[in-house]
């Protein structure tokens, strides 16, 4: 469900993001762009966190907390 919803978002390489369903625009930072791309591809929250930890050399604990928080942010913004 989350994947379907996120796939509707239009994003560019600068992190600019447009939600055609609401007309709202967003700006993503670099880490958020990476996470959004993985979630759009259908990675689970846990898989995305593992990738984030490996890619940036951070603890899995921090990666999981940040992934969870990012999804929370998407919900608060009415995206997810």
């Amino acid at each position, binding site marked *: 469900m989350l994947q379907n919803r996120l796939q509707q978002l239009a994003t560019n390489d600068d992190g600019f993001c447009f939600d055609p369903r609401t007309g709202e625009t967003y*700006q993503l930072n670099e*880490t*958020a762009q990476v996470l959004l791309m*993985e979630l759009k591809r259908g990675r689970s929250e846990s898989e995305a966190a*593992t990738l984030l930890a490996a*890619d940036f050399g951070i603890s899995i604990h921090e990666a999981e907390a*940040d992934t969870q928080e990012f999804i929370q*942010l998407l919900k608060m*913004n009415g995206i997810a």
Partner: protein
Amino acid sequence: MSPSKKSVKKYTKPSILKLGGPLYAKHGAASKNSVPVRTEIGRVPVAQLAAEFGSPLFVFVEDTIRANFRSYANVFKRLYPKTVFGWSYKTNYLKAVCAIFHEEGAIAEVVSDFEYEKARALGLPGDQIIFNGPYKPKNALQRAIKEKALIHIDSIDEIFEIENIANSLDLEARVGLRVNMNTGVYPQWSRFGLNFETGQALAAAKQLARSKAIKFEGLHCHIGTFMLSVEAYTIAAEKIASLFLEIERETGITLNYIDMGGGFPSKNHLKGVYQAPEVAVPSISEYASAITDTLKATFSDRELPTLILEAGRHLIDEAGFLITSVVSRKLLPDARRAYVLDAGVNLLYTSTWYRPTFELDGDEGSFLEPAVLFGPLCMNIDVVDSHLMLPPLRVGKRLILSPVGAYNVTQWMQFIQYSPAVVLVRKTGVVDVIRERENLAAVEGLERLPADLNQTEKSFQAQKIRKAS
């Protein structure tokens, strides 16, 4: 992104920001600003200071204190050689700070028996102390009279009190009269001293001139704090100088000084002032010219009185920094980012009126989002700033707040948390602790526990067992 590929990419917390009108730059992209970065304080790395002395940490820079004082003193001395500089103890009465100002040639301006004792304990002779304030306890007045301190009269009752003490000691008290006045600035400070416009100051001066127990030496005023109006000092100097001459004319005594107090602003950002401090705050030369030109014009045909000044904030604010760290982060229900810092309003008394500059100890990029900074107190009011734009920060990230050198380390509260250490970066680059971090013994040092309430851990255990059975 591959799990097997190790990367050295700098990690930033993921964040998404809804774009609105105010966040757009003229080309349509989100506004790209950055938060200023400070990696050193007084040439000592912030990371080293925090590692060695902990966080939060107040840091003062000796070079800045001395440079500020010299530049201010030079401006006044050049325009008016007969200037005496007092250091306002209440602004920051840490011993090391006061000692630096005294070494630079400042005398002490104190406003309580506690501050008087601090100045004397630092070795300053009584006759190098100006004793101001609305309440001076009897024993403090006795000591000040004996030690020939200059006492500034705040009320008529205080004149009687000083006369009585001086008579009982068979000594002459050295006094000046504090005068308040309308300088066109709102709010008018009218609670200290006696009023100029109503004639109360002149009446009190006549009373002082008649007294056999009092040596009436001069006049004092202090028109406000963080005074952005130079014109107010011109008006104050005109009024106090005219009163000076009138007193001499009507009583026949000779006065020898005019004390214009302080109130000169620092480069802090006063809340409610739209312009940046660099624009809003006049230079010290402008204040100096306003005061000294007026005095020189008024006393053009006679010897100039000594000019005394009692600056505080202007001299110390920019020499003080507060290092604080992010201890946790959360999202507020309105999607704003919130951070809990290890320093809060308990340490930043002045944050009620002033908004310091927030710097980071390293670049975190230009993706800025609305953020709220909370302090560590379990109190809803502990909000350090609620309208900041910050990059997403990780736990442990350090922020450096400045200027915070004025009033914070005197007005901070012993409340819930221990107060942090205060260090001084010396001229040599060595860092000295000038106030240790508080501990339980220091905080509880003055408490007394009645013997019957002094329960040991053992008695708590026994109580628990009794209850259980």
